[in-house]
């Protein structure tokens, strides 16, 4: 089995794992990886999990998920958010991020843009 396929399966297993520690593992190893491909797959897994903890990582963390420095990772994360069936949780997290006084301005702006995209696409 190819290494990238093994990584795919590990990320998939972590995204489906019921243990809440799985989010921390995905954040620690996946979103901090030097490889764009792994960061992208991890962001997808966190969005698919659709929990407040996993969504906070991709929405409100600098350099991760929709705030990733790689345009490919950021855009595909936004795309994954837009394709969620239940967007209630992500809208709540986006709202919180926009209204958080301590949050960086660029992260707030990105959250606002994504929220506008979701509103237009609904």
């Amino acid at each position, binding site marked *: 089995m190819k*290494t990238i396929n093994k990584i795919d399966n590990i990320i998939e297993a972590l995204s*489906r794992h019921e243990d809440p520690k799985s989010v921390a*593992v995905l954040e620690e190893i996946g979103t901090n990886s030097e490889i764009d491909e792994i960061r992208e797959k991890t962001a997808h897994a966190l969005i698919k999990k659709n929990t407040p903890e996993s969504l906070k990582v991709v929405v409100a963390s600098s350099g991760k998920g929709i705030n990733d420095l790689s345009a490919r990772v950021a855009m595909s994360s936004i795309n994954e958010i837009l394709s969620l069936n239940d967007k209630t949780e992500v809208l709540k997290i986006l709202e919180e991020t926009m209204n958080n006084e301590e949050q960086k301005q660029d992260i707030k702006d990105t959250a606002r843009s994504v929220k506008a995209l979701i509103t237009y696409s609904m």
Partner: protein
Amino acid sequence: MKITNTNFSLFSKPLSKEERQEVHSNPFGINFKGNVLTSDVFESSKAKETTNNNSTNPFAAVSGKSKMVASAFVGGINSFNEAFRSRINSIISFGRQVKDTIASSWEKAKNTEISLDFRTLADSISSKFNNQYSVNNLLKQPVDDLSAMFKTCEADYKTELAKA
């Protein structure tokens, strides 16, 4: 002679080739366009002369030829009927064959015992596809183990990319 007086019917049972050859009045079995002529298309030379010399009937000149064409037409209809009937028969026999085949297959299926040893089957499948990295197997492992595997694989992949 009126058309109503003839016994000929388009939908009557067509005669077979042998029957037609026996019935037709043409003693020489003349063929015209592939059909045996079923009516007498010959006319006496006397009649022909009369026609050529002083006939007032404009259709009389072509009557001999028309007779031949009409006879060939009738023969053609008979051949068509025969061909149509034979095709229908072959379709019917094909249908019967299909029906018989299905019936015999059903009988065979009814009398066949099917037994599956699921345990052996599952073992053989899992021995072939037993993969430590399959999602189902990974899901059974604790997150800490997955974390360690993730780290190892990520490092391996980084090395692979560096080599490529």
